[in-house]
């Protein structure tokens, strides 16, 4: 076996990893106090005007079911609830953190990448709904960010990223497989690093870290399991492209544990398609 190149130390030493706005921390703290009012949260969010306007744009999209009806953040909290608004703020912040293009890399279409990510989020949300999970909003975020590790490599080490794309294409293998063959770190771990730095909840972190290897996931299994399946379905339907043209093999236990083995798949596909259409609004944030 040829020696694998070290990317890990390079990635660990990147000083300008994208950050999330401080308002996220503030809201999280506020939400830990049961006496916090909708107004206080609203105020905290509106201190970041750019973020607040994006949140309102999302809140008023078809995706959240109240198109054009909500005019203030406080109003949004009253109608949608704290948890949902916090998730929306987080979603808008993630898009902000990765806004803009990196270098041109042969064979990589950033727009297709985002489409794949958004579609995977929408599909994760549909699967969560389909199996009656209450975590559907978090599943959307988990699906949306499952591949952020790829973006970190793309932005900071574009040449290595390009060699990964080329290797995947030339050998008809998954991007993930190319990573394990060429380097000492995968996009799962790179994304996991960022998720940890961002202090994201454990279920989101795990979904990033184990979406290709769900059997290694020890706790907060459900979100990871759902994203694992959503990624595969979204690839089968060619919703966007995350960097390779293959489909990973499903983990049979995961599929069965979610109850997908004896479900009406056509109905699930239908709801995924609908959800992706509704997620149109997110492309405007990229």
């Amino acid at each position, binding site marked *: 076996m040829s020696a694998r190149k070290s990317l890990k130390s390079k990635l660990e030493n990147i000083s300008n990893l994208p950050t999330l706005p401080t308002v996220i921390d503030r809201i999280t703290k506020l939400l830990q106090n049961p006496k916090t009012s909708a107004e206080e949260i609203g105020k905290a969010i509106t201190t970041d005007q750019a973020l607040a306007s994006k949140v309102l744009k999302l809140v*008023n*999209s*078809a995706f959240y079911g109240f*198109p*054009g009806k909500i005019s203030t953040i406080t109003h949004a909290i009253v109608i949608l609830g704290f948890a949902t608004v916090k998730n929306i703020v987080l979603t808008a912040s993630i898009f902000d953190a990765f806004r803009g293009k990196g270098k041109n890399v042969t064979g990589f279409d950033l*727009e*297709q990448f985002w*489409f794949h990510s958004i579609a995977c989020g929408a599909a994760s949300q549909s699967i969560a709904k389909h199996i009656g999970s209450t975590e559907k909003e978090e599943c959307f975020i988990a699906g949306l960010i499952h591949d952020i590790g790829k973006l970190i490599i793309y932005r900071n080490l574009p040449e290595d990223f390009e060699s990964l794309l080329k290797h995947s294409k030339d050998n*008809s293998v998954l991007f993930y497989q190319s990573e394990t063959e060429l380097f000492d770190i995968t996009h799962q771990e790179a994304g996991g690093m960022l998720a940890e730095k961002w202090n994201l909840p454990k279920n989101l972190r795990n979904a990033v870290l184990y979406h290709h290897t769900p059997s290694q996931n020890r706790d907060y299994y459900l979100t990871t399991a759902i994203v694992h399946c959503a990624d*595969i*379905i979204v*690839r*089968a*339907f060619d919703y*966007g492209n995350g960097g390779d*043209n*293959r*489909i*990973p*093999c*499903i983990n*049979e236990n995961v*599929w069965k544990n979610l109850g997908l*083995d004896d479900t009406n*798949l*056509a109905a699930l*596909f239908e709801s995924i398609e*609908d959800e992706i*259409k*509704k997620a*149109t*609004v997110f*492309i*405007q944030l990229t």
Partner: protein
Amino acid sequence: MKKISAEKIEDGMVLGRDVCGASGSILLSKGSSLSQSMGRRLINWGISFVYVEGEEVHEQEENSATTSPEELRSQLMEKFSNTINNPIMKKLFVAVYQYKLQKSSK
């Protein structure tokens, strides 16, 4: 005003009618100026036609080529080739194939 396929959107064209997404929300409003990259985004989101300002011209038949069942099968087969021996992947393959087939016949 003329109706054009989203692939033919060029930089500087002006939108003649609102573009609506599922459930009626407005994605782009009338009067917005368009660009090729925006056209690609619209296609990604399943929007195939838009109305732009300007004179009506005769368009050749709108997207004539639909994928035949055989083509669909072989395209999918290529994607699944490494995993088709797994019973669940096989099931998934069949379900996706049938779903796509049914959609394309509508």
